[in-house]
């Protein structure tokens, strides 16, 4: 019997990168900028489903900043979560970054890859992130 599945069954939109993939790219840039002294990791918090009044978000990740010479140190900069559809993706920060970015709710919603790019630029430029990265570099010397 011949293959009845259409050749166009799997269509991948190359512009629709997942938030996790986009962050992984930024992690490589961070390593370069800090000459490998500071790096970041994304950890799946799969045993930590976040629920709101409508949905349960099973794709939950933590973004951790670490130091090459600080073996067990990590700073959890934010938690992000989304459903299987990738977008919207929601971010949760501690109060310092919330205050800096003018986020008043407990979570911040990002609707598209383009929006995510702009948003991550703001997050990575925040004084809090700069403070953590520069402290790691200073204390690694």
């Amino acid at each position, binding site marked *: 019997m011949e293959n009845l599945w259409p050749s166009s069954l799997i269509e991948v939109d190359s512009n629709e990168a997942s938030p996790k993939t986009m962050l992984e790219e930024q992690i490589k840039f961070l390593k370069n900028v800090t000459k490998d002294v500071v790096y970041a990791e994304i950890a799946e918090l799969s045993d930590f489903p976040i629920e709101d009044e409508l949905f349960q978000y099973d794709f939950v990740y933590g973004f*951790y900043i670490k130091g090459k010479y600080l073996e067990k*140190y990590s700073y*959890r900069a934010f938690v992000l979560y989304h459903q299987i559809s990738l977008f919207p993706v929601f971010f949760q920060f501690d109060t*310092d970054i919330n205050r800096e970015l003018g986020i008043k709710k*407990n979570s911040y919603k990002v609707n598209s890859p383009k929006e995510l790019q702009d948003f991550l630029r703001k997050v990575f430029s925040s004084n809090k992130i700069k*403070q953590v990265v520069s402290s790691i570099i200073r204390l690694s010397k």
Partner: protein
Amino acid sequence: MRFLFWNVGKKSVIQEITQIVKNREIDIIALAEFNENPNDLLRSLYSESLDFYLIPRFGCYRITILSNMSPGHFKPGGETEYYTIKEIYTPARDKVLIVFVHFPSKMFMSQDDQMDETRLFIREVEQAEREFKNNNTLIVGDFNMNPFDRGMVAASGIHSIPCSLTVKQRQQRKVKGRNYTMFYNPMWNLLGDKDNKPGTYYYSAAEHLIYFWNILDQVIIRPGLIDRFDIESLEIITRDNNISLVNDKHRPCLSDHLPIVFAFK
């Protein structure tokens, strides 16, 4: 090792801290909402022949830690703005995991959000226990919860229980197929007004459910540290020699929180 924890409420209390540290032979000072220059506190301590160090900070600036042990004794673990984990090499030549916390106020967070934050927190404490291969964990600080609040007691929360014997015997329990390890919370012993120290934080408002006195500042410990914890040393401080930390109405008058002190071997 003797600990002092105090949420100083952004007040200038360097003299008071110095006196408490001197009179009670404190080894580790942890302060929340300490907005003064830590070097001024170090100088004040030094003027009383108390040689302390500031433990380096990376991202958790809500908590200031000073110790008479050098920073080399403190190995940094995970942290956020709300807590910082350190493995401490103690004078008894062993290692203890100390978690210093200052959780956000209930005023800025719904109870559900607070529960989410608590679950994430305890997940990361357990992660640190695995990484450091150390279950001798002590958590101290301003939890912004009472010992009896859901986030403090629930198995899916911090899971801190008021009976040391139960915690030592059971250590963990299974709920819906998942194992949850326990903490012992000695702060339950301080609830009530028998010793005229009904809490660490006073709050009154025209609301239906008000306790007036709350114990938001707490220390909790894993089963492995219970025998080393000196329960008699656990105290809410309202007075130290000539300095009173409460006013005529017996409410906190320097900071809005009262300090706690405790010791373990």
